[in-house]
């Protein structure tokens, strides 16, 4: 791999242990993946920081990087941790608060932004063809597919290393020749909002390579749900959305295989509605709620005096604690459980449930896998209506 003189100096430890180790990590993985060089990035997004997931080993390494002089050299945002940062959620447990705060403190001391969200594009929407190094698969696929930026699905340590060095290897989706569509998913036009989570799960499990979706123009809110699910059940990093994905950020192969999907294919991914007597959690916020989605829910619930006594959980980025403090208060008084800077995918639950009703295919996938809770997928609007009754 070609390295500049500056990169050689970093590798040789002239700027300290942490950045040398970080660059070695990127070089070794890059060499293995066939990268010819390193490229500078504009924005790193560090995932793999939930103490519940990384445990003592992850905390130890992050601490060692900090002590070794590590500092973010590019704009760096942080994924959700495992605790509600306002400490008021009754559904997400705060038992690991002390350890998570330690992780957060080391990251923040290394100049990373305390965003604690899985939608980093909220803080800095990327421009087409900008190079990023993002962990968190849902953010990666939105960056590539919606914004036309360039990032691979980086694991936690690599995204951290990219933050400290400002570089990533030139391979995978960083290379235009690898951003080539070879399949087209032909959607049954009757697939609507209620099935988007299930559709994403179907794509993840049934389609490999880079697919294209035509004639089904998705908004950011819908794309968020479809893409997050496909990146959870599969290994997708880019799904081209006709009329949405910026042109010149991908190519279409001469041979495109067409694959159709209709409503009946999605049935098994959707799950079944809750039955009487089941302990049910209603959950929205995977990926974290966009401001418009949050305001929609607020507006809808604000005018209703009486709500059903369901457990209703919303998960939102940390910054909303400042900008939507009044709205959060209004919803809390109505009994909505709001957890900030975290989500059920990376945390411990305080309560047991038989079923989760969610609009998110990604949440459905992980609720079953991590918490052993059966999901039912429907639309955001339908969930809000169920809550109002």
């Amino acid at each position, binding site marked *: 791999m070609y390295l500049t003189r500056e990169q050689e100096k970093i590798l040789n430890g002239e700027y300290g242990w942490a950045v040398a*180790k970080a660059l*070695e*990590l990127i070089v*070794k*993985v890059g*060499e*293995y*993946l066939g990268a010819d060089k390193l490229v500078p990035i504009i924005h790193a997004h560090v995932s*793999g920081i939930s103490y519940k*997931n*990384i*445990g*003592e*080993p*992850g905390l*130890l*390494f992050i601490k060692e990087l900090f002590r070794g002089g590590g500092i973010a050299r590019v704009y760096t945002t942080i994924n959700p941790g495992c605790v509600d940062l306002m400490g008021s959620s009754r559904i997400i447990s705060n038992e690991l608060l002390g350890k998570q705060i330690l992780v957060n403190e080391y990251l923040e001391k290394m100049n990373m932004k305390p965003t604690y969200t899985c939608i980093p594009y909220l803080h800095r929407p990327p421009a087409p063809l900008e190079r990023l190094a993002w*962990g968190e698969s849902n953010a990666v696929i939105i960056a590539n597919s919606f914004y036309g930026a360039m990032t691979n699905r980086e*694991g*936690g*340590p*690599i995204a951290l290393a990219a933050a400290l060095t400002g570089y990533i290897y030139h391979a995978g989706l960083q290379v235009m020749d690898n951003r080539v569509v070879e399949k087209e998913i032909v959607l049954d036009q009757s697939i609507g909002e209620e099935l988007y989570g299930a559709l994403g799960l179907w794509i993840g499990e049934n389609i490999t390579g880079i697919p294209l979706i035509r004639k089904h123009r998705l908004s950011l809110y819908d794309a968020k749900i479809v893409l997050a699910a496909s990146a959870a059940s599969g290994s997708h990093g880019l799904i081209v959305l006709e009329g949405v994905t910026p042109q010149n950020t991908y190519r279409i192969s001469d041979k495109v295989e067409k694959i159709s999907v209709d409503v009946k294919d999605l049935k098994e991914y959707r799950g079944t509605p809750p039955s009487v007597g089941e302990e049910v959690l209603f959950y929205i916020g995977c990926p974290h709620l966009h401001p418009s989605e949050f305001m929609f829910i607020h507006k809808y619930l604000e005018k209703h005096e009486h709500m059903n006594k369901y457990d209703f959980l919303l998960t939102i980025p940390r910054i909303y604690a400042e900008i939507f403090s009044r709205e959060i208060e209004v919803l809390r008084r109505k009994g909505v459980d709001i957890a900030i800077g975290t989500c059920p995918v990376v945390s411990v639950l305080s309560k047991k449930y038989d079923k989760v009703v969610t609009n998110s295919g990604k949440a459905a996938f992980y609720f079953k896998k991590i918490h052993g809770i059966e999901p039912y997928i429907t639309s955001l609007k339908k969930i809000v209506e169920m809550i109002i009754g």
Partner: protein
Amino acid sequence: MKHGLGIKIIIDGDCEAPLVLLDRYISFFGEVDPVKGIVKPENIHIGGKALVFKGSRGSTVGSYIIYALKHYGHRPACFIVKEAEPILISGCVLADIPLFIARDYDYLVQLVSSIRNGVVRHVRGEEYVEIKEL
């Protein structure tokens, strides 16, 4: 008797250690206890050993588990695998563990299975490992 076996170096380093064979993929997150330095469910201790296995799978937290093996004093002497991937490579960089891809993994497995107490030796820069029976 000594056997020379071709390797592709992913992370170079000297290594001289007893061989341990686990002819399968390992998910470091979930299957390796870094505090005890063992692989489950076999409960095989891998600290100071040259571990031969197919490769890694599972969560990216696996990199941190490999790092933790070093932290808790159970750093393996080297890994010889059939195939590598970013989680394994990252972990080996963090923990300074030499990582090699066997050019003929199946032959390596056959050889390691046929000897009782095997030892592997590798000198930095050489494109092969030596295997001998104690």
